[in-house]
Every structure is written in structure tokens, then in C-alpha cells.
């Protein structure tokens, strides 16, 4: 077993490399993905080794990146599109929602668009506006798309390869503030036997309440659980991993045991994923609940200026405060 310590960003890079090696039809396209290796260096060194026909620096046109990738997919390629920052995906929104998501359906199953749309998302890096957004609900609301997010280097490495291998079009959300966090990665993990792309996972077992998170907030919830343990509260943490479709079986099982659930995400709460999750838990686990399902989220404002983002982003204290409220019911 070749286990290495890698950052989440590097794990993605190695995963992309493996995908390029494994299938000549895999191509990477985006702004600055070539020589520069992407603004976050996730594609670092790939153009050098695979050439500019496999790792394509594109014109500065997001709709063009996604729209031409649709054509490449129809032609038999497996494009991986990098959107440079979350806030710049909107010019491509029409192509993603109206074309990528619907092509298989409209063609009665005759066309596949095996595309991965990689988006560094979320805040916490002190960036200027349009660089810290959480657009997941827009995509999760769209039938025909799958939306996933990785939270640790091992998952980053495996999930990116699974996403590329899948015939489903996948919006792959990368927690940009976690790019530099390190973890153990088993580089030989066989994809098929590894944890499936569409499965939520208990990342910390516990008995008192269930914390639900994905992407950047998994780390925050794990930290909150550690802090709560010091106060004698044993919290369970679930990494949802796939946001559409949600894998809620694990969640229901957990909430039935703990009786309390808190959903944590950076995106605004209004019509966000937390609302969907809370509604479903309420439908399925009503008689097991000791308190309403609570949400800890970003506010219903545009992402604020960097100097106040620590206030905007759910942090350990806000998570623990919600847990307290769940117990005070």
C-alpha cells in the first residue's frame, strides 16, 4: 500500500494525472490550467507531461468552456472543465443547466455527457468579491446533474477519479480553503472497491447529536465535535460527500439514534441544502426527534468583504451554540 501524506490540492492533482494516464479521451480544459497549472496549481505539471491537446488553455469564456466540452463529450471525449472561481461559473450557468444536465434526457438516453465541472468553492481565504461563493444549491436543484464535494485528501484523490470515470455529468466542488490541508492518501486505492462516490460517511461516530456537513465545513464540524467531547458531549459527524443525490440513509439511521441533527454549510440558509435535509429528516425521523433540525449557515447576504468573513462563516462556536440549542429544546 503506497500511502503518502498529501495536501488536498496535491491529491486532486495526482488523481487528475491518473485519470489522464488511464484514458486517452480524458481532457482538461480551463483558464490558465496549462503552463500555470491553474490559479490553485491543481493542474500543475499536467500540460507539461500530457501536452496541450490533453490539458487545454482556453479562451476566457466560461460558457465556451462548458459548451465546447459538451461537443467534445458528444464526440467521445471525457472533458474535465475547471472554472477558476465559484463566482465565475454564472456565465456558464445556461450551458450547465440547460445543456449539460439535459442532453442525456432530451436524447432519450442516446447521448452521454461524461463531464466533470471542477469548481473551487467557498470562502475563508480572504479573497475579494466573487471568489468565495457557495453555489451548490443552484446545481443540486437541477435534475441531470450530480453534485459532489470532497473534504479530505483521500476523498479528493479517489472522488475526482470516480467522477471522471462516471458517465454522469458531475459538478465537483473543491473546498478551496482546505486545499492546503494534509492527510494520508492511499495511492493504490482501487476506485471500484473504494468508498462509492454517492455515499455519505460517518467520519466521527457519536451518540449525543448528529452534525451534517460537506466540503469545507466537515473540518469545522470535526473540530466542534472535539471541543464538545471535552464538555462531555459525544457528537457524531457525517460527511455528506454527495449533495445531489443526497445519501440520507446513513443520516436517518444516525438521527434515529441521537435524536438531534444540526446541518452546517457556508451557503446562505434561504432555500439552501440545509432546508432540504431538514425537511427530509423531519419526514423520515419525526418520532425520533428530540428537537427540530437546526441549521448553521452563511447569512442571506452576498458573500461579505474578507475582513468580516470570519463572522459570516459558520465556525466552531456557532456550531456548538446550535448544539446547545438542540439540547435546550
Amino acid at each position, binding site marked *: 500500500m503506497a500511502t503518502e501524506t498529501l495536501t488536498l490540492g496535491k491529491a486532486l492533482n495526482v488523481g487528475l494525472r491518473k485519470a489522464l494516464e488511464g484514458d486517452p479521451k480524458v481532457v482538461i480544459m480551463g483558464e490558465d490550467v496549462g503552463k500555470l497549472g491553474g490559479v490553485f496549481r491543481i493542474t500543475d505539471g499536467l500540460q507539461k507531461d500530457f501536452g496541450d491537446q490533453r490539458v487545454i488553455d482556453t479562451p476566457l469564456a466560461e460558457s465556451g468552456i462548458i*459548451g465546447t466540452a459538451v461537443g467534445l463529450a458528444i464526440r467521445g471525449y471525457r472533458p474535465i472543465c475547471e472554472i477558476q472561481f465559484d463566482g465565475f461559473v454564472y456565465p456558464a450557468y445556461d450551458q450547465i443547466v*440547460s445543456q449539460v444536465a439535459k442532453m442525456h*434526457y432530451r436524447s*432519450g*438516453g442516446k447521448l*452521454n455527457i461524461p463531464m466533470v465541472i471542477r469548481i473551487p468553492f467557498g470562502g475563508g481565504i480572504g479573497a475579494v468579491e466573487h471568489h468565495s461563493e457557495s453555489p451548490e444549491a443552484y446545481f443540486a436543484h437541477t*435534475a441531470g446533474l450530480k453534485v459532489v464535494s470532497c473534504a479530505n485528501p483521500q476523498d479528493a484523490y479517489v472522488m475526482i477519479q470516480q467522477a471522471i470515470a462516471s458517465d454522469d455529468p458531475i459538478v465537483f466542488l473543491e473546498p478551496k480553503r482546505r486545499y492546503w490541508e494534509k492527510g494520508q492518501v492511499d495511492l493504490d486505492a482501487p476506485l471500484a472497491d473504494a468508498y462509492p462516490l454517492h455515499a455519505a460517511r460517518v467520519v466521527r461516530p457519536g451518540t449525543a447529536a448528529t452534525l451534517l456537513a460537506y466540503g469545507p465545513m466537515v473540518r469545522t464540524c470535526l473540530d466542534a465535535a472535539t471541543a464538545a467531547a471535552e464538555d462531555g458531549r459525544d457528537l457524531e459527524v457525517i460527511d455528506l460527500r454527495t449533495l445531489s*443525490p443526497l445519501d440520507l440513509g446513513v443520516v436517518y439511521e444516525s438521527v434515529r439514534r441521537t435524536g438531534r441533527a444540526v446541518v452546517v454549510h457556508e451557503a446562505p440558509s434561504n432555500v439552501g441544502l440545509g432546508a432540504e435535509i431538514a425537511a427530509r429528516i423531519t419526514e423520515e425521523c419525526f418520532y425520533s426527534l428530540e428537537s427540530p433540525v437546526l441549521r448553521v449557515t452563511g447569512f442571506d447576504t452576498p458573500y461579505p468583504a474578507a475582513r468580516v468573513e470570519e463572522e459570516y462563516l459558520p465556525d466552531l462556536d456557532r456550531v456548538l451554540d446550535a448544539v446547545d440549542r438542540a439540547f435546550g429544546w
Partner: protein
Amino acid sequence: MAKGDPGASTRGRRAAPRSKKATTGDPELVQLLTPAGERIDSVIGPDGTEYRVDFTAEEYRGLYRDLVLVRKLDAEATALQRQGELGLWASLLGQEAAQVGSGRALRTQDMAFPTYREHGVLYCRGIDPIMPLRLFRGVDQGGWNPDEFKFNMYTIVIGAQTLHATGYAMGVAMDGKTGTDDGEAVIAYFGDGATSQGDVNESFVWASVFNAPLVFFCQNNQYAISEPLERQTRVPLYRRAAGFGFPGIRVDGNDVLATYAVTRHALDNARHGQGPTLIEAYTYRMGAHTTSDDPTRYRIASEVEAWQAKDPIARVKTFLEREQIADASFFAEVDEQARREAVDLRERVLALPNPEPSTMFDHVYPNGSPLLDEQRAQFSRYLESFEGSAH
């Protein structure tokens, strides 16, 4: 996606200065068959290319048959819509030559990306003409196999398909399928209104910088629903190409021969690795934009009459008669075939069954989705709950 060998390129000639000045109202056209049915042997286009066609009598008759059949089937679809059998229909009336000329210029290996109006191109690709009627009746969303017929699904979102065509064409080049006589080329159809869209302009940029084997085929039918050309552009559309770095040419879109010649030439350039061309087929939409609008609100009768005089089918007929390529019995036979095919189409449309409701859950994801499986199961339990009841 290597650039074509500059030595072998025709680009130098294409960039030659133009003598005549063109405006949107004064089209500078490549034409091989005048509205009066007079044959022009060959034309040197403003790009310096000589355009000509060399058809056998049989082929001329074939083109005429295509034009008549396509018009008749379209008329039948319009009638079916008026009788409530189709939710909507986007008629191609007046644009038959642009579609048949470009459609017949395609080789088997070439791929087309249409809008929602390319019934004539669809016909040329050998697809059953009932297919678009299924879409507009609401039986499915476009049931032909794009791979099999090399004709992608109709696209309703204006301009979106030009990017798909560009990406597909990039794939053709990456597959090494250009640079030879039997190379592949791609054609993207769109309207004059579409030229205002970001996607179309992005596709111009992409196709140009990647030297994609692509022909942009704009049917300038003078209107985007009610908005005239002047609301989309202040320069003749074909001239836009120059700013993106590839040739643009305007052809008489009501002239099936010129449309064929110009499209064939552009496709051959593309398949030989010489990159994209923008063709502006200058034509006119004789009917409504779709069956849901009223063109008398935005255009005047004299304009329609002026274009009537340029009818794409009448001029071919005059030519065939004058050159004695076809006689009255041929024309009668074509009319009879068109009538029969229209009747057949009508009968088949009326017999189309509605899809099973549960099929709406099919083909959302190639790999399925547990969420959807759950909803499908719930829905079928709900339907079953009616069984045996009075409903």
C-alpha cells in the same frame, strides 16, 4: 489542432480587398441561379474563390424534389398545428433552398448542429420527417440518434449549439480526422438573432483560435421573432467573421445552387484543416416565426411580396423547364409524391401514442439516481392506488 499549412491555405486570397461596398440593405451575394431562373455559370466570390456547380440532370431534379417535399411536409406540419395536433411549429417556409443547399453539401461523415427550424437539413440527413413533429407534439424531446444520423438534436436555447459544434469540431481535429479529402467537417446552424448571443461570439473565438473544422451557417431570415435585422447588427453579418480571423461570405440563401456551392467549398476547406468559415445565407422567413406569432404586427405586405418574387422553388422550376431538364410529367409526379408523403405524415402523427407517464423518469442519469428511484416508486404506487377505482 495544428494550424493548416500556410502554403496550402486559401486564406491569403480570401483576405483580398473587396471592391463592392455592402450594407445590410444591399446584399452582396454569391448567386448561381437568379430569381428569374437564369443560370449563372460561375461566380468569383468577394473572397476570390470561384464558385460553380456541375450537376447532372438527375441531380438537378433531385434538388427540386427535395425543395418541394420539404416545403410540403412543412406546410402539413403547420396545418397540423392549426388543427391542434402540434403544440407549436417553427416553419421553414422560404428557407428551403438555404437548408437543402447546405444539407446536400454535407458529406456522410460531416456532423450538423441545428436549431429548431432545420427540418430541411434533417430531411437531407435521412431522418424520418416525423421526428421534429414528435418534438413539437410533445411526445418526446427529439428521438433520433444524433450519432447515427450525424445530426444533433434540435436546440431551443438560441446559439447554445454553436459551442457544441465547436467542441465537436475540436474533437474531430484532435482525432486527426482533418487534412484529407475524406476528412470530417462540422456545420452549426443559427439565425440572425442568434448572432447577438454571447455563445455565438464565444464560438467564433474558439473556432478561430483552435482552427476548428467548422462552418457557421447563419440563415439570415431578416427577423428574430418580431425584431428586424437592424436590431441585431449595424454591419452585414458575414463581415463579422473578419474580426474573428476567418472568412465570411454572403450567399443568396434562396438559391439552392449557390448555397450548395458555397457550403461545399467551406466544408471542404474545414475538412482540409483550413479552419472555420461563416456563411450568411441571405433569405427570408415567409411565414410566422412560429405558429404562435402574428407577423402582420411587425412587417408590411410589400416586403413579403418582394421576397415572394425571389421564391427558391419557382426559380429552380423555371430553370428546369427552360433547359428541358424536366417536363410536366416530372413536376406532376413530384407533386404527387409530396402529397402522398404529407398524407402519410399526417396519419402517422395522429396515430402517435402518448408516452407512458412513468417514462418521464427514464434517462435522467446514465447511472441512475436513488432519489429518482424513490420518486418513481412513489409515483407508481400512487398510480396503482387508482386501479379498480372509478377514475
